[in-house]
């Protein structure tokens, strides 16, 4: 009995191993530098994306952006967290199937969810602007179209850089545009 609970050495093998433990954020896989890099890559769609940027798939950023999207819609009087979740799941499954059919290397679900989630940022900006102005007018329609094009361009850029499909970027951009178009319908109507 005493051997099983013998002294401090039983619980803490040494004081060094406790200090050698990685920080909590690193254990959880939340890397703020990577999140910042990916966010800047989305905000500047004309900048070339690095090939291995999306290899580190994290869901912290997409989760924050989805919650921000739902929160900004809530400020407009629309409680649509369920629709965001449903459309997100269906869109991710469709893109996962399509990209696995089109690419030679295949793609993981985490990568698809991560890219689509990060590229939702322009839609968050659009829904935030809906708090101040109506999106059913001419300005709103122009802003909506711009946001959808921005999202689809950014997401297709990240996908083709991760999967080496440069000559097929329009073919990847179009289904992304459809997914973000449905999100835009949630925002406008």
């Amino acid at each position, binding site marked *: 009995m005493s051997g099983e609970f013998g002294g401090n050495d039983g619980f803490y093998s040494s004081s060094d191993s406790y200090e050698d433990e990685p920080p909590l954020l690193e254990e959880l896989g939340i890397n703020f530098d990577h999140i910042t890099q990916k966010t800047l890559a989305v905000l500047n769609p004309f900048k070339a994306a690095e090939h291995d940027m999306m290899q580190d798939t994290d869901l912290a950023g997409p989760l924050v952006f989805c919650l921000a999207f739902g929160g900004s819609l809530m400020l407009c009087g629309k409680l649509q967290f369920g629709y965001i979740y*449903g*459309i997100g799941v*269906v869109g991710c499954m*469709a893109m996962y*199937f*399509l990209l*696995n*059919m*089109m690419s030679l290397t295949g793609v993981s679900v985490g990568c698809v969810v991560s890219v689509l989630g990060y590229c939702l940022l322009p839609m968050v900006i659009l829904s935030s602007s809906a708090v101040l102005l109506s999106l059913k007018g001419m300005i709103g329609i122009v802003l909506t179209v711009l946001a959808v094009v921005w999202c689809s361009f950014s997401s297709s850029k990240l996908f083709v850089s991760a999967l080496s499909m440069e*000559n*097929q970027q*329009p*073919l990847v951009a*179009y*289904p992304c545009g*459809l997914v973000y*178009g*449905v999100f835009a*319908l949630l925002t*406008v*109507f």
Partner: protein
Amino acid sequence: MADRGQSWPTQQDESAIIDLGDVNDRDDGSDYETDMSRGPTDGSGKGSLEEDVRKRLTDNVTQMVWNAGTQQAKRAWSLYGNIDILRPYFNVEPHEVRTRLLQSFLPRMPSSEKQRAYRELYGPLMVVFTLIALLLFQMKAAEHKVEEGTLMGTAFGVCFTYWWGTAALMWFLSYVCNAHITSIQLLSLLGYGLAGHCVVILLGTLIHTSHDHLFFYLLWAVFGGLSTLKMVGVILSRTHGKSQRLILSCTIAAIHLLFLLYLHFAYHQIVEDLSRVLDSDPVVKQPEVVNNVRTVSKGEI
């Protein structure tokens, strides 16, 4: 019984412990109970051996059947359930998709030469998704409420049921009429044919014409007709025999055109009704009010 009666004092002599259960059983003169409790001593081993063998045989056969069935199922799944068999149908270039989309509106006269039917699923799948998105747009704009299910579920169900259901029906008819066209070619043909529907739905949603369906019927005839003629031309070039050609061409034309009518009257009509109700209040009723005032004033005079 006589034997048991003789064994009773012998057992009594051998052990000092009396089993009251045995005592009660032994005292009961019922042959049934005693016969059931103790069978014939010379046949009991053989009976249990047969049962054991039968049980083991059953277990082994069951296991063999289960293993064989599992192997067959795994083989069938690896052959047909592997989605990698669809990979060649998504290997396209952007300019090819654009060309095929435009060609879906350009019918060619059927001739002795077979018209090309593409084996591709990317373009048709995108057209179907576009139609779903346009239906959602139309339903959102019309504030169309679905009592059971969701708007997205309704749109998905309608579009995919039409695409796959019509392809299955046409495949069956093609098999019966001996047409040289495969299921993938039919899926591709029907999918690209829905591009006409997308154009009509989009224009019909963006341009509202109240009280009048003429604009819609014009679009229906032009875009729906062109895509229908394209599909009919491809099928006619791959079918021999007048009655077979008639069956296939009439079926695909009817289903294709009626589907567009259904989409219009199921969803877009609601927009028209709403706009008519919202726009009609004071302007329409004014002539009646004016007439009533004139009648009253004449009556007074």
